[in-house]
């Protein structure tokens, strides 16, 4: 490609525009979170007065009174447990699909794909009814179970793609040396598969962290309400104050760590998101 000076300038402008568009909502919510109650409606993109008031109000009163601490714990706990179980189950299935010859392989892949397309709203009503009967309504497992269901296809497709790249001769070598298929899996393949599993784990975590529909439908209190759902129910300090500042501060706390994490592992995430799509 010819690389004249003009082309380079245009290119740089395009890149800067893309970056700005990507960053605006993030910078804006950070800016809002540092504004004081008096200036929150000043409509300026950059805060004129900085304060940590919004952050302090989120944690005021400790775990029993803060509107934010319990949902944060719920979000972290539920997303981590979902990720852990989902990756274990998906690894088993992905290994079988990538490596073993058995009838039902393609059914499993097609089934996972069908689940990935399934509209979650169609299960919300029945789950609401079932969970109340089973005592799972407004509990951690009540959210973990649907998250597992809808994250498994993502995890399976990502892992199958990664598992197909692994040098499987090593496994054969282990089997020649007398290892059973399961031993070969555990001792040889798991260490080799760890990077792929890590990538899949990031994707599943982000999925569970992001969910809103199940979180507002299957919970009713801070016992299990996650941050996205809690944000929708935030109220101001009094009936006359808008909760804008607290929402912004809470949003920053749940967003910035994930963005840093995503950017640290960006190559992996791009590989994970793209691999499953073409090779599945």
């Amino acid at each position, binding site marked *: 490609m010819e*690389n004249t000076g003009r082309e380079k300038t245009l*290119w*740089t402008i395009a*890149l800067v525009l*893309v*970056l700005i*568009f*990507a960053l605006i*909502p993030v910078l*804006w*919510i950070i800016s*809002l979170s540092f504004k004081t109650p008096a200036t929150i409606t000043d*409509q300026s*993109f950059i805060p004129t007065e900085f304060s940590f008031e919004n952050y302090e109000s989120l944690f005021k009163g400790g775990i029993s009174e803060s509107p934010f601490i319990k949902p944060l714990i719920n979000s972290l706990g539920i997303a981590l447990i979902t990720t852990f179980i989902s990756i274990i189950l998906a690894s*088993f299935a992905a*290994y*079988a699909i990538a490596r*073993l*010859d*058995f009838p*039902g392989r393609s059914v*499993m892949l097609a*089934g996972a*794909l069908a689940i990935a*397309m399934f*509209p*979650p*709203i*169609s*299960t*919300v*009503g*029945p789950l*609401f*009814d079932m969970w109340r009967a089973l005592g799972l309504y407004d509990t951690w497992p009540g959210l973990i*179970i649907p998250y597992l*269901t*809808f994250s498994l296809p993502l995890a*399976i497709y990502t892992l199958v793609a990664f598992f197909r790249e692994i040098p499987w001769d090593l496994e054969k070598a282990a089997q020649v040396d007398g290892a059973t*298929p399961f031993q070969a899996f555990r001792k040889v393949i798991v260490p080799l598969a760890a990077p792929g599993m890590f990538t899949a784990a990031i994707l599943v975590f982000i999925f569970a962290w*992001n969910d*809103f529909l199940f979180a*507002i439908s299957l919970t009713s209190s801070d016992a299990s309400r996650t*941050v*996205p759902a809690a*944000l*929708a129910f935030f109220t101001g300090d009094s009936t006359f104050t808008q909760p*804008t500042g607290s929402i*912004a501060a809470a*949003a920053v706390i*749940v*967003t910035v760590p994930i963005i840093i994490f*995503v*950017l640290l592992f*960006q190559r992996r995430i791009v590989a994970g*998101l793209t691999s499953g*799509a*073409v*090779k*599945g």
Partner: protein
Amino acid sequence: MTDRARSERRLGWLLCAPAAIAMLAVTAYPIGYAFVLSLQRVDLRFPEESGFVGFDNYSAVLSSDLWWTDLFNTIFLSVISVSIELCLGMAIALVMHRAIFGRGVVRTSVLIPYGIVTVVAAFSWQFAFAPDTGFVNQLPLIADDKDWFGERFSAFSVIIMAEVWKTTPFMALLLLAGLTTIDDGLYSAAKVDGASAWQRFTRITLPLMKPAILVALLFRTLDAFRIFDTIFIMTGGAQDTQSVSILGYQQLISRLNLGLGSAVSVLIFLCVLVIAVIFVKGLGARQPESGRA
């Protein structure tokens, strides 16, 4: 069949079983249950009036203006946002694929929206456009008192922008995956033959990427059809901006009318099924082996 093949087959089923059960337990069973509920009058506010009503719930939903308005909204939002995403996503994918410099910058910008919780992004855009807190109305050429969420189509435009912002990355990455499978030799050959950049794009890139584009469109269309979070946060469905998912939520969870809500759920499921079948047919006709990709 040898013992080895038999044990391999058993191991395969054993390893897949937990994932299969976990996936079916919360989809196949509930959709069946939703169908059963949809044939009954089940309103948790009036539990004593429950009973079998046949397809009454369906005729109630299908004869209401609300369902058709919401279906129109959902299709409208899906078509517009997915079209914009396809163009933007294609541009970004080409840049990421061909870029001489700045590839890292694009990848970084693309992943920021991906990492953000949809609800948070929706709040951020809502606060940005809100007439009392937002900076948007301070920009030149925009009326200071424009009430973006007070009117249907201006609310739609903000909703579409938020959706495009959040999901273009995914589209771009799927298309990038398709781009990397094209043999570079084809471009050099076309260049030698004097094909312009545009000709190379329309004659080589687009036809070869057709399967990748269809897969990306399928995923994004179905995802867009489920739109819920952004609308819930931004307008709550006011000004006729409801999607079918919001309608389902309101019937099921806000009004506790499980019968009517389940009928909506089943209808949404059927819509999704129809969209999926159309896309899979389009894929399968040309590329049999990628039909299940």
